[in-house]
């Protein structure tokens, strides 16, 4: 029954909250209502005509009257349903509910762009105003997948251009987006309000300029961790010259200088601007000027946080701390791209209010952030990379575990942490598990592979074990360091809410993966690399895979024949083997396995290096 193989399968039935745990620190932590709420989606045409307009082809004129009433009532009720989990449930009640829910859903979330085709989206949902679409698996960010794998936005935007002229919001993650796609978007949706591109690539500043220029109602333009080619266009000047509706402008990832004067003017005529994330071409002095003009900001990306090279230093030096003090609403801070540590104390005035702090681009050591963290009592999200040099030179370096300890003592409300370091101890991780019971996201990357506890020499099993045991709300976990099967036994036993698990260079045997596949009922996204898990482990999860968003396993011990068995056993699972040599089909070894469920079968745009079993 076509109606009963619903879209819901691509949307997690089990998740209760917004799936934003793998984005860069959210600037608002689920406290702000979504920008385009479904309550605004309902038009004001009279019930009767709305029924007729919105009815699908199967509705006949001879429907008894009570059903009309029911559907009108339903529509009026369901329009207020925001949570997609609730909507998925509602759509399963009966055919009528399914139909009405489909008519009233205005925000669609697609966690894997290959789980269904654009046509299926537009056939089921007729009144979509907002689309969240995710493409490549996360490990693609780290060169574990050749380029041109797919996840093209083009077919989506062209289909939606015809089907949803009222589209207001597009939020893409790890998609390939071209300037042409952006041009089509800018032209096709006159009411367009929000463009969010996270970890995307394929476009440049010329595409951005088009969006800035043509989307006159633009409220949000967020370019986050995306690769944006520099087409040498002054895109900031392309915004309309009158007062704008801008609420959020993030361009910290744009690796091109910007016209500061134009930016200052833009900020000056954007009275609703609350979120501003600058790129590293904005100096400390320029930041200062912007802050003086926009003290209402809630979310700030500070840009380079250093002096303009070669620029004349104004005497006396601007009072940066005063500028920060004036920004009483700042709760989210990031940037520090070329941090001059002597100016870091300028942010002290805002520390007490901070809920999110992202130092991941800063060349910073625990000694530097400890005094800051000490004041950040409200902190919920913290990102830092303790590196001296990203060229991976080994370093005796700063004492990373003390940094973690300081965070756990200063930030008892911590919910999400991303911590890169050279080495760690179980004791520090255990301390964090005890001090920060609110943790939902714990991502610890000990950059030395297979590194044990550097004080005791033992594996990091107990530390991560404590995290899964004590942090009862944990939904996302990334592990590292030397880990035996025991760590995975802990995960299976205690990690009952884990939805996303990231494993690298860990475990001793298939048992480790078995523990996880059999013990973590909420597991949705599993990414594993360079770990000794093989066919036996893969088979253990057969009952799970269709209910997961994806499974990635690279450089493990999988055989092609086993993957073929899985593909054969599960018809709606797309099993991609990536990187296998075309010449040698006899080779049984699988370098990379990426599998996911799909309603529309294997994709047609797979490149040569992808074999779909």
């Amino acid at each position, binding site marked *: 029954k076509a109606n009963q193989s619903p879209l819901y399968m691509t949307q997690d039935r089990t998740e209760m909250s917004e799936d934003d745990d793998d984005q860069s620190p959210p600037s608002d932590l689920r406290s702000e209502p979504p920008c385009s709420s479904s309550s605004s989606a309902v038009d004001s045409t009279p019930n009767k005509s709305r029924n007729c307009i919105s009815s699908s082809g199967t509705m006949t004129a001879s429907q008894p009257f009570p059903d009309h009433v029911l559907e009108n009532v339903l529509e009026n009720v369901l329009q207020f349903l925001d949570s997609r989990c609730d909507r998925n449930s509602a759509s399963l009640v009966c055919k009528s509910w399914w139909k009405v829910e489909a008519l009233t859903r205005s925000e669609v979330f697609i966690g894997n762009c290959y789980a269904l085709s654009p046509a299926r989206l537009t056939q089921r949902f007729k009144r979509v105003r907002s689309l969240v679409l995710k493409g490549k698996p996360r*490990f693609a*960010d*780290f*060169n*574990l*997948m*050749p380029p*041109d794998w797919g996840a093209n936005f083009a077919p989506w935007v062209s289909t939606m251009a015809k089907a949803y002229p009222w589209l207001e919001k597009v939020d893409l993650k790890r998609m390939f987006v071209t300037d042409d796609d952006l041009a089509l978007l800018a032209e096709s949706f006159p009411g367009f309000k929000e463009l969010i591109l996270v*970890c995307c690539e394929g476009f440049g500043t010329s595409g951005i300029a088009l969006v800035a220029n043509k989307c006159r109602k633009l409220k949000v333009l967020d370019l986050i*961790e995306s*690769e944006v080619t520099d087409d040498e266009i002054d895109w900031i000047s392309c915004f309309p010259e009158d007062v704008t509706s801008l609420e959020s402008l993030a361009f910290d*990832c744009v*690796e*091109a*200088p910007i016209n500061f004067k134009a930016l200052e003017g833009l900020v000056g005529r954007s009275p609703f601007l609350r979120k501003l994330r600058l790129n*590293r071409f904005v100096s400390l002095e320029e930041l200062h000027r912007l802050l003086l003009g926009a003290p209402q900001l809630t979310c700030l990306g500070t840009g380079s946080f250093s002096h*303009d*090279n*070669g620029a004349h230093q104004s005497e006396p030096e601007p009072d940066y701390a005063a500028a920060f003090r004036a920004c009483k609403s700042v709760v989210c801070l990031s940037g520090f*791209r*070329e941090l001059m540590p002597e100016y870091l104390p300028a942010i002290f005035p805002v520390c007490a209010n901070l809920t999110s702090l992202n130092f*991941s*681009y800063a*060349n910073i050591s625990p000694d530097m952030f400890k005094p800051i963290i000490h004041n950040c009592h409200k902190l919920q999200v913290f990102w830092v*990379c303790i*590196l001296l*040099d*990203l*060229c*991976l030179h*080994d370093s005796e370096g700063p004492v990373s575990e003390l940094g973690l300890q300081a965070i756990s003592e200063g930030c008892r409300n911590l919910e999400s942490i991303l911590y*890169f370091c050279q080495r760690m101890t179980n004791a520090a991780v255990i301390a964090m598990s005890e001090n920060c019971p609110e943790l939902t996201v714990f991502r610890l*990357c000990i*950059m*030395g*592979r*297979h*590194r044990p506890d550097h004080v005791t020499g033992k594996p990091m099993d107990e530390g991560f074990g404590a995290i899964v045991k004590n942090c009862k709300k944990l939904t996302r976990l990334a592990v590292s360091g*030397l880990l035996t099967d025991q760590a995975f036994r802990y995960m299976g036993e205690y990690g009952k809410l884990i939805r996303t698990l*990231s494993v*690298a*260079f860990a475990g001793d045997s298939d048992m480790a993966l078995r523990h996880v596949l059999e013990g973590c009922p909420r597991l949705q996204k599993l990414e594993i*690399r*360079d770990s000794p898990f093989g066919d036996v482990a893969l088979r253990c999860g057969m009952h799970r895979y269709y209910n997961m968003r994806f499974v990635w396993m690279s*450089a493990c011990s999988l055989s092609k024949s086993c993957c073929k068995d899985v593909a054969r056993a599960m018809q709606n699972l797309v099993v991609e083997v990536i*990187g296998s*040599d075309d010449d*040698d089909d006899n*080779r049984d*070894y699988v*370098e990379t396995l990426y599998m996911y469920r799909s309603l529309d079968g294997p994709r047609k745009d797979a490149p*040569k*290096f992808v074999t779909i079993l």
Partner: protein
Amino acid sequence: MICLRPRHPEESSSIYKLHYKNTAAPVTGNKRGFSETVDLKLNLNNEPESKEGCTSHDVVTSVSKEKSSCPKDPAKPPAKAQVVGWPPVRSYRKNVLVSCQKSSGGTEAAAFVKVSMDGAPYLRKVDLKMYKGYDELSNALSNMFSSFTMGKYGGEEGMIDFMNERKLMDLVNSWDYVPSYEDKDGDWMLVGDVPWPMFVDTCKRLRLMKGSDAIGLAPRAMEKCKNRD
């Protein structure tokens, strides 16, 4: 352990005109000689670091004619083997941080060159200005091309066993790909001979040649090697 090896032994005839610079001269002044020759470690070494002996150097330095010690000096703590995509930091971020560490500000024109690896189905492009030296380029290239592993089970052992005294011989012997580049004159050169800034200026294109092909790159060294027997 995943190794990049040529799958079939190839004829050593090379279609490119190869110039071999006299790198046997002692290192004086600005001349690099053999020191800091880029070593493209395209092995994806998955060995844990605890196995000390297995890890390899990222950059093998200073093997001059006079020294007789093997560059893989067991007394030195081995550098971490380079692994693709580890740590899991977006390459975009790495590039940003590299450029941040550059002392001079302002934008410079990028120096994009194509990079081809023998046997790979597609080319890549790198911006040479993003790197401070040969070792960074080496890291980046090995990251880029490691997706073309020939499979865990490796290919045939088609390498010729040279004495491992010379730097070039080490390249050919222990690793499977030799970096060469096309300069402004259209000649194919061995990477590593000239100072880095000069290389960035003159390099038009990079090619990672199969080791067997690269034998033709250093005829004089080979001769000297044979003479030592």
